[in-house]
């Protein structure tokens, strides 16, 4: 840990804490999950960077959406995302959440995940290599450092529109709104 690091720790412990302790929700959303076990086990050992799978969304601050998102999964993703405490970061893993990827014409997968929840970073590829996850993590560090990983703020501010999109894709959602919607005609 060099002097620069210590200075950063003293200045903004919150940011640094979030950087080096990214607990990812354990959610096998799609086929990208197959590369998560190698990443968290002996070969790549993500725990070196403080990345750890968390059993419950309450404990996590990173949501790695691994692969295509079917409509049914989207509901679970939204529920899980809303249960995570703020600040929280989302990373889309693989091509499918970006634009539908291979399943661009499937009737049951949603194509652009960022229409429904905010995404802080993307990892392209099908399937991205484990190293790509580390690149994403280090990139996320930079974003956190610069204060650009503000997806959760965006979600809070534009909750009305997000909720509208979610209900367009899923029909009426059972659970009450997470935030009061400020201005309907924004």
């Amino acid at each position, binding site marked *: 840990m060099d002097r620069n690091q210590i200075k950063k720790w003293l200045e903004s412990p919150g940011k640094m804490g979030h950087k080096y302790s990214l607990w990812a929700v354990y959610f096998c959303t799609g086929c990208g999950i197959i590369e998560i076990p190698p990443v968290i086990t002996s070969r790549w050992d993500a725990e070196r960077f403080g990345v750890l799978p968390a059993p419950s969304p309450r404990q996590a601050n990173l949501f790695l959406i691994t692969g295509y998102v*079917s*409509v*049914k999964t989207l*509901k679970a993703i939204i529920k899980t995302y809303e249960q995570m405490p703020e600040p929280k970061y989302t990373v889309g893993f693989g091509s499918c959440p970006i634009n*539908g990827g291979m399943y*661009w*014409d*499937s*009737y*049951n997968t*949603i*194509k*652009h995940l*960022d*229409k429904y929840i*905010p995404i802080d970073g993307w990892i392209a590829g099908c399937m991205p290599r484990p190293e790509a996850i580390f690149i994403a993590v280090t990139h996320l560090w930079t974003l956190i450092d610069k204060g650009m990983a503000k997806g959760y703020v*965006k979600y809070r*501010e*534009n909750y009305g*529109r*997000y909720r509208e*999109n979610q209900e*367009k*894709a*899923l*029909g009426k959602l059972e659970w009450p709104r997470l935030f009061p919607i400020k201005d309907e005609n*924004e």
Partner: protein
Amino acid sequence: MNKEFKQELESIFRDITVNITDDVTPVIAAAKPQILAILRFLKDKGYGHLAMISCVDWLKEAQFELVYLVSAYLKGDNEEPGQEKITILLKTRIDRDNAELPTAIPVFENAEPYEREIHELFGIHFTGHPRLLPLFLEREYKIPPFRKDFDSREYVKEVFDKIPFVEDKE
């Protein structure tokens, strides 16, 4: 699959055609009311493994073709050696409108999820099925999605592409 078996089948069940193209996948085509009886007969003959139930939508003929794939497990004292190599394709055709069929659960218990799936994806109703609940789908589709007249690409354009992106306010 030998000739005797073919003859036995044809003698018991009228109006069926048994077509032996290769050694391992004989095809039996039968009418809708006979399906359960044939399945039971095949099961008694040792073909006790329902591999799956498939469905093909022949749009031009306005018919659904249901395919029951039945094969045999190994037996200790195998009466007919080589039986386990055979997979019988039992086919039946039903009308596309008013698509209804008796369930095969009384014969093969594992028909349940297959029939649920076909009900959901093709809209075929299986009478007597204990739980024809949705299996895979969350959204409701006007036309069951696996029918040939359901255009997936059109649907994507209509539904998912029309949802706007959420841009930050400036």
